[in-house]
Protein backbone atom coordinates (compact mmCIF):
# COMPACT_ATOMS: atom_id res chain seq x y z
CA UNK A 1 0.00 0.00 0.00
CA UNK A 2 1.28 3.43 -0.87
CA UNK A 3 0.65 6.66 0.94
CA UNK A 4 -0.37 9.68 -1.04
CA UNK A 5 -0.85 12.86 0.82
CA UNK A 6 -1.83 14.92 -2.21
CA UNK A 7 -5.10 14.70 -4.09
CA UNK A 8 -4.65 13.56 -7.65
CA UNK A 9 -6.94 14.75 -10.41
CA UNK A 10 -8.24 12.01 -12.71
CA UNK A 11 -6.99 12.37 -16.26
CA UNK A 12 -10.36 11.80 -17.86
CA UNK A 13 -13.71 13.19 -16.92
CA UNK A 14 -16.93 11.22 -16.91
CA UNK A 15 -15.58 8.23 -14.99
CA UNK A 16 -18.33 6.65 -12.91
CA UNK A 17 -17.02 5.55 -9.52
CA UNK A 18 -18.31 2.62 -7.53
CA UNK A 19 -19.85 3.26 -4.13
CA UNK A 20 -17.13 3.78 -1.54
CA UNK A 21 -14.41 3.97 -4.16
CA UNK A 22 -13.80 7.68 -3.73
CA UNK A 23 -13.03 9.31 -0.39
CA UNK A 24 -16.05 11.15 0.97
CA UNK A 25 -14.00 13.62 3.01
CA UNK A 26 -11.42 16.10 1.77
CA UNK A 27 -8.51 17.85 3.42
CA UNK A 28 -9.88 20.71 5.50
CA UNK A 29 -13.20 19.02 6.30
CA UNK A 30 -14.26 19.09 9.93
CA UNK A 31 -15.25 15.69 11.26
CA UNK A 32 -16.42 14.09 14.45
CA UNK A 33 -15.16 10.66 15.51
CA UNK A 34 -18.05 8.33 16.30
CA UNK A 35 -18.80 7.35 19.89
CA UNK A 36 -19.76 3.77 19.13
CA UNK A 37 -18.49 1.09 21.50
CA UNK A 38 -18.71 -2.18 19.60
CA UNK A 39 -17.66 -5.40 21.29
CA UNK A 40 -14.22 -6.60 20.27
CA UNK A 41 -10.89 -5.02 19.38
CA UNK A 42 -11.34 -1.80 17.42
CA UNK A 43 -8.51 0.28 16.08
CA UNK A 44 -10.09 3.55 17.15
CA UNK A 45 -8.69 4.46 20.57
CA UNK A 46 -11.47 5.22 23.05
CA UNK A 47 -9.85 8.48 24.25
CA UNK A 48 -10.65 9.99 20.85
CA UNK A 49 -14.22 8.81 20.38
CA UNK A 50 -16.59 11.77 20.17
CA UNK A 51 -13.76 14.23 19.51
CA UNK A 52 -13.80 16.79 16.72
CA UNK A 53 -10.91 17.11 14.30
CA UNK A 54 -9.98 18.17 10.81
CA UNK A 55 -9.02 16.04 7.82
CA UNK A 56 -5.38 16.70 7.04
CA UNK A 57 -5.00 14.24 4.18
CA UNK A 58 -6.55 11.21 2.54
CA UNK A 59 -4.52 8.01 2.73
CA UNK A 60 -4.42 6.46 -0.73
CA UNK A 61 -5.25 3.89 -1.88
CA UNK A 62 -8.37 2.76 -0.06
CA UNK A 63 -7.86 -0.14 2.32
CA UNK A 64 -9.71 -3.10 3.70
CA UNK A 65 -11.77 -2.51 6.82
CA UNK A 66 -9.56 -4.62 9.05
CA UNK A 67 -12.09 -4.46 11.87
CA UNK A 68 -14.68 -6.23 9.67
CA UNK A 69 -11.96 -8.52 8.35
CA UNK A 70 -11.29 -9.61 11.91
CA UNK A 71 -14.74 -11.19 11.85
CA UNK A 72 -14.20 -12.81 8.44
CA UNK A 73 -16.07 -10.12 6.50
CA UNK A 74 -14.09 -8.36 3.85
CA UNK A 75 -15.95 -8.42 0.54
CA UNK A 76 -16.53 -4.85 -0.60
CA UNK A 77 -15.33 -3.35 2.65
CA UNK A 78 -12.61 -1.15 1.17
CA UNK A 79 -12.81 2.51 2.17
CA UNK A 80 -10.32 5.24 2.94
CA UNK A 81 -8.27 6.07 5.96
CA UNK A 82 -7.88 9.76 6.75
CA UNK A 83 -5.13 11.50 8.65
CA UNK A 84 -6.99 13.56 11.21
CA UNK A 85 -5.57 16.46 13.19
CA UNK A 86 -7.04 17.15 16.64
CA UNK A 87 -5.89 19.92 19.01
CA UNK A 88 -4.67 18.57 22.37
CA UNK A 89 -6.97 21.07 24.09
CA UNK A 90 -9.95 19.40 22.34
CA UNK A 91 -8.94 16.03 23.79
CA UNK A 92 -7.90 17.11 27.29
CA UNK A 93 -9.68 20.04 28.98
CA UNK A 94 -6.75 20.48 31.39
CA UNK A 95 -3.97 20.04 28.80
CA UNK A 96 -0.62 21.42 29.94
CA UNK A 97 1.29 22.86 27.03
CA UNK A 98 0.99 25.11 24.03
CA UNK A 99 -2.55 25.49 22.62
CA UNK A 100 -0.93 24.72 19.25
CA UNK A 101 0.03 21.20 20.34
CA UNK A 102 -1.90 18.54 18.50
CA UNK A 103 -2.50 14.89 17.82
CA UNK A 104 -2.52 13.13 14.47
CA UNK A 105 -4.15 9.79 13.83
CA UNK A 106 -5.34 7.68 10.89
CA UNK A 107 -9.07 6.96 11.13
CA UNK A 108 -11.11 4.63 8.93
CA UNK A 109 -14.07 6.21 7.12
CA UNK A 110 -16.69 4.25 9.07
CA UNK A 111 -15.66 6.09 12.25
CA UNK A 112 -16.07 9.60 10.86
CA UNK A 113 -19.06 11.87 10.43
CA UNK A 114 -18.96 15.24 8.71
CA UNK A 115 -19.92 18.34 10.70
Amino acid at each position, binding site marked *: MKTKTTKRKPNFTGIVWALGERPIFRPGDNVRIATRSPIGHYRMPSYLRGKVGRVESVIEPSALDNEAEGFGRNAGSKLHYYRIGIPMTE*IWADYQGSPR*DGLRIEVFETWLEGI
Partner: protein
Amino acid sequence: MGITQPGHEHDHDHSHAEISQSAPPGYYEIMETAVRELLIERRLIGADEIRRQIEVLDFRTPALGAKVVARAWTDQGFKARLLANGRAACEELGISFYDDTSLIVLENTDKIHNLIVCTLCSCYPRPVLGLPPDWYKAKPYRARAVSEPRAVLAEFGTIIPDDVEVRVSDSTAMVRYLVLPRRPEGTEHYDEEQLAALVTRDTMIGVVPATVLTERSSNDEH
Protein backbone atom coordinates in the same frame (compact mmCIF):
# COMPACT_ATOMS: atom_id res chain seq x y z
CA MET B 1 35.54 -20.93 37.32
CA GLY B 2 32.69 -22.65 35.61
CA ILE B 3 31.27 -25.84 36.85
CA THR B 4 32.57 -28.87 35.06
CA GLN B 5 29.99 -31.46 34.28
CA PRO B 6 30.45 -34.75 32.49
CA GLY B 7 29.91 -34.14 28.79
CA HIS B 8 29.79 -30.39 29.29
CA GLU B 9 33.08 -28.70 28.46
CA HIS B 10 33.06 -25.18 29.83
CA ASP B 11 35.85 -23.30 28.17
CA HIS B 12 35.27 -19.73 29.27
CA ASP B 13 36.98 -18.42 32.36
CA HIS B 14 34.23 -16.76 34.33
CA SER B 15 31.56 -18.18 36.53
CA HIS B 16 27.91 -17.41 36.18
CA ALA B 17 24.57 -18.66 37.38
CA GLU B 18 22.93 -21.37 35.38
CA ILE B 19 21.08 -19.82 32.46
CA SER B 20 17.58 -21.09 32.94
CA GLN B 21 13.98 -20.06 33.01
CA SER B 22 12.86 -20.27 36.60
CA ALA B 23 9.40 -18.66 36.52
CA PRO B 24 6.58 -20.84 35.23
CA PRO B 25 5.26 -19.79 31.81
CA GLY B 26 2.49 -17.19 31.93
CA TYR B 27 -1.00 -17.43 30.48
CA TYR B 28 -0.11 -15.81 27.14
CA GLU B 29 3.12 -17.79 26.79
CA ILE B 30 1.16 -21.00 27.13
CA MET B 31 -1.46 -19.73 24.69
CA GLU B 32 1.23 -18.77 22.15
CA THR B 33 2.85 -22.18 22.42
CA ALA B 34 -0.49 -23.95 22.07
CA VAL B 35 -1.55 -21.91 19.01
CA ARG B 36 1.87 -22.28 17.40
CA GLU B 37 1.91 -26.05 17.90
CA LEU B 38 -1.62 -26.37 16.54
CA LEU B 39 -0.78 -24.30 13.45
CA ILE B 40 2.28 -26.43 12.76
CA GLU B 41 0.43 -29.67 13.46
CA ARG B 42 -2.31 -28.68 11.00
CA ARG B 43 0.39 -27.74 8.46
CA LEU B 44 -0.90 -24.17 8.17
CA ILE B 45 2.58 -22.83 8.80
CA GLY B 46 5.94 -24.49 9.22
CA ALA B 47 8.36 -24.21 12.12
CA ASP B 48 10.95 -22.84 9.70
CA GLU B 49 8.62 -20.01 8.65
CA ILE B 50 8.41 -18.85 12.26
CA ARG B 51 12.17 -19.09 12.71
CA ARG B 52 12.69 -17.19 9.46
CA GLN B 53 10.36 -14.36 10.48
CA ILE B 54 12.16 -13.99 13.81
CA GLU B 55 15.41 -13.79 11.86
CA VAL B 56 13.92 -11.10 9.58
CA LEU B 57 12.74 -9.08 12.59
CA ASP B 58 16.09 -9.36 14.36
CA PHE B 59 17.97 -8.26 11.26
CA ARG B 60 16.06 -4.97 11.07
CA THR B 61 17.69 -2.42 13.37
CA PRO B 62 17.74 1.37 13.82
CA ALA B 63 20.89 1.42 11.67
CA LEU B 64 18.62 1.11 8.62
CA GLY B 65 16.51 4.10 9.68
CA ALA B 66 19.69 6.08 10.40
CA LYS B 67 20.86 5.52 6.82
CA VAL B 68 17.51 6.74 5.53
CA VAL B 69 17.75 9.91 7.64
CA ALA B 70 21.36 10.57 6.61
CA ARG B 71 20.38 10.19 2.96
CA ALA B 72 17.52 12.67 3.44
CA TRP B 73 19.91 15.14 5.10
CA THR B 74 22.32 15.01 2.18
CA ASP B 75 20.00 14.57 -0.81
CA GLN B 76 17.15 17.08 -1.16
CA GLY B 77 15.48 15.12 -3.94
CA PHE B 78 15.42 11.98 -1.81
CA LYS B 79 14.12 13.97 1.17
CA ALA B 80 11.21 15.29 -0.91
CA ARG B 81 10.33 11.77 -2.06
CA LEU B 82 10.67 10.44 1.50
CA LEU B 83 8.25 13.05 2.85
CA ALA B 84 5.82 12.45 -0.04
CA ASN B 85 5.81 8.66 0.32
CA GLY B 86 7.95 7.16 3.05
CA ARG B 87 7.56 3.58 2.00
CA ALA B 88 8.38 4.13 -1.69
CA ALA B 89 11.48 6.15 -0.79
CA CYS B 90 12.72 3.45 1.62
CA GLU B 91 12.04 0.81 -1.03
CA GLU B 92 14.28 2.83 -3.35
CA LEU B 93 17.09 2.03 -0.90
CA GLY B 94 16.21 -1.65 -0.91
CA ILE B 95 14.27 -1.69 2.38
CA SER B 96 11.29 -4.01 1.94
CA PHE B 97 8.01 -3.62 3.82
CA TYR B 98 7.35 -7.24 4.69
CA ASP B 99 4.39 -6.26 6.89
CA ASP B 100 2.66 -4.29 4.10
CA THR B 101 2.36 -1.15 6.20
CA SER B 102 2.70 2.32 4.76
CA LEU B 103 5.09 4.86 6.17
CA ILE B 104 4.60 8.55 6.85
CA VAL B 105 7.83 10.38 7.56
CA LEU B 106 7.39 13.36 9.87
CA GLU B 107 9.91 16.16 9.58
CA ASN B 108 11.00 17.98 12.71
CA THR B 109 11.55 21.68 12.11
CA ASP B 110 12.19 24.75 14.24
CA LYS B 111 8.40 25.08 14.53
CA ILE B 112 7.20 21.48 14.88
CA HIS B 113 8.43 18.63 17.06
CA ASN B 114 7.00 15.22 16.20
CA LEU B 115 6.62 12.32 18.60
CA ILE B 116 5.31 8.85 17.77
CA VAL B 117 3.37 6.41 19.92
CA CYS B 118 0.93 3.55 19.58
CA THR B 119 -1.68 3.90 22.31
CA LEU B 120 -3.42 0.65 21.36
CA CYS B 121 -0.46 -1.70 21.30
CA SER B 122 3.04 -1.48 19.81
CA CYS B 123 2.70 -0.37 16.16
CA TYR B 124 6.18 0.72 15.14
CA PRO B 125 8.06 1.19 11.86
CA ARG B 126 9.62 -2.26 12.19
CA PRO B 127 10.81 -2.54 8.56
CA VAL B 128 13.16 0.43 9.15
CA LEU B 129 13.78 0.35 12.93
CA GLY B 130 13.37 -3.27 13.99
CA LEU B 131 11.68 -4.14 17.27
CA PRO B 132 10.50 -1.29 19.51
CA PRO B 133 12.13 -0.64 22.90
CA ASP B 134 10.30 -1.99 25.94
CA TRP B 135 9.33 1.47 27.21
CA TYR B 136 7.58 2.17 23.90
CA LYS B 137 5.31 -0.83 24.55
CA ALA B 138 4.74 -0.02 28.23
CA LYS B 139 1.45 1.54 29.31
CA PRO B 140 2.92 4.66 30.99
CA TYR B 141 4.55 5.83 27.75
CA ARG B 142 1.53 4.92 25.65
CA ALA B 143 -0.89 6.79 27.89
CA ARG B 144 1.26 9.80 28.73
CA ALA B 145 2.70 10.48 25.27
CA VAL B 146 -0.76 11.58 24.12
CA SER B 147 -1.89 13.31 27.32
CA GLU B 148 1.23 15.07 28.58
CA PRO B 149 3.82 14.80 25.79
CA ARG B 150 5.89 17.73 27.03
CA ALA B 151 6.32 16.14 30.45
CA VAL B 152 7.31 12.82 28.83
CA LEU B 153 9.81 14.59 26.56
CA ALA B 154 11.27 16.43 29.56
CA GLU B 155 11.88 13.08 31.24
CA PHE B 156 13.97 12.12 28.21
CA GLY B 157 15.88 15.39 28.69
CA THR B 158 14.12 17.11 25.81
CA ILE B 159 12.68 20.54 26.60
CA ILE B 160 10.47 21.88 23.83
CA PRO B 161 10.07 25.69 23.78
CA ASP B 162 6.49 26.97 24.06
CA ASP B 163 6.56 28.45 20.57
CA VAL B 164 7.27 25.02 19.06
CA GLU B 165 4.24 22.86 18.35
CA VAL B 166 4.38 19.35 19.77
CA ARG B 167 2.67 17.00 17.32
CA VAL B 168 1.98 13.48 18.52
CA SER B 169 1.15 10.81 15.95
CA ASP B 170 -0.77 7.81 17.26
CA SER B 171 -0.22 4.73 15.05
CA THR B 172 -3.29 2.64 14.37
CA ALA B 173 -3.96 0.07 11.69
CA MET B 174 -2.10 0.53 8.43
CA VAL B 175 0.22 3.46 8.82
CA ARG B 176 3.56 3.66 10.60
CA TYR B 177 5.59 6.77 11.34
CA LEU B 178 9.25 7.68 11.31
CA VAL B 179 10.50 11.00 12.65
CA LEU B 180 13.02 12.82 10.47
CA PRO B 181 15.08 14.66 13.10
CA ARG B 182 16.70 18.01 12.41
CA ARG B 183 20.27 17.85 11.16
CA PRO B 184 22.51 19.10 13.98
CA GLU B 185 24.43 22.30 13.44
CA GLY B 186 28.14 21.99 12.82
CA THR B 187 27.79 18.87 10.68
CA GLU B 188 28.12 20.59 7.30
CA HIS B 189 31.38 18.77 6.55
CA TYR B 190 30.11 15.34 7.67
CA ASP B 191 29.65 12.65 5.05
CA GLU B 192 26.60 10.41 4.93
CA GLU B 193 28.18 7.70 7.07
CA GLN B 194 29.25 10.16 9.77
CA LEU B 195 25.78 11.66 9.77
CA ALA B 196 24.11 8.25 10.10
CA ALA B 197 26.19 7.64 13.23
CA LEU B 198 24.43 10.61 14.90
CA VAL B 199 20.96 9.21 14.25
CA THR B 200 19.88 6.97 17.11
CA ARG B 201 16.66 5.01 17.51
CA ASP B 202 15.23 7.54 19.96
CA THR B 203 15.74 10.46 17.56
CA MET B 204 13.55 8.63 15.03
CA ILE B 205 10.81 8.05 17.64
CA GLY B 206 11.05 11.74 18.45
CA VAL B 207 11.90 11.59 22.14
CA VAL B 208 15.28 13.29 21.65
CA PRO B 209 16.87 15.51 18.99
CA ALA B 210 19.87 14.31 17.00
CA THR B 211 23.00 15.90 18.39
CA VAL B 212 26.70 15.77 17.69
CA LEU B 213 27.26 14.78 21.32
CA THR B 214 25.39 11.51 21.45
CA GLU B 215 28.07 9.74 23.48
CA ARG B 216 27.09 8.56 26.92
CA SER B 217 29.44 11.02 28.58
CA SER B 218 27.30 13.93 27.45
CA ASN B 219 24.17 12.38 28.92
CA ASP B 220 25.80 11.73 32.27
CA GLU B 221 25.72 15.44 33.01
CA HIS B 222 21.92 15.53 33.02
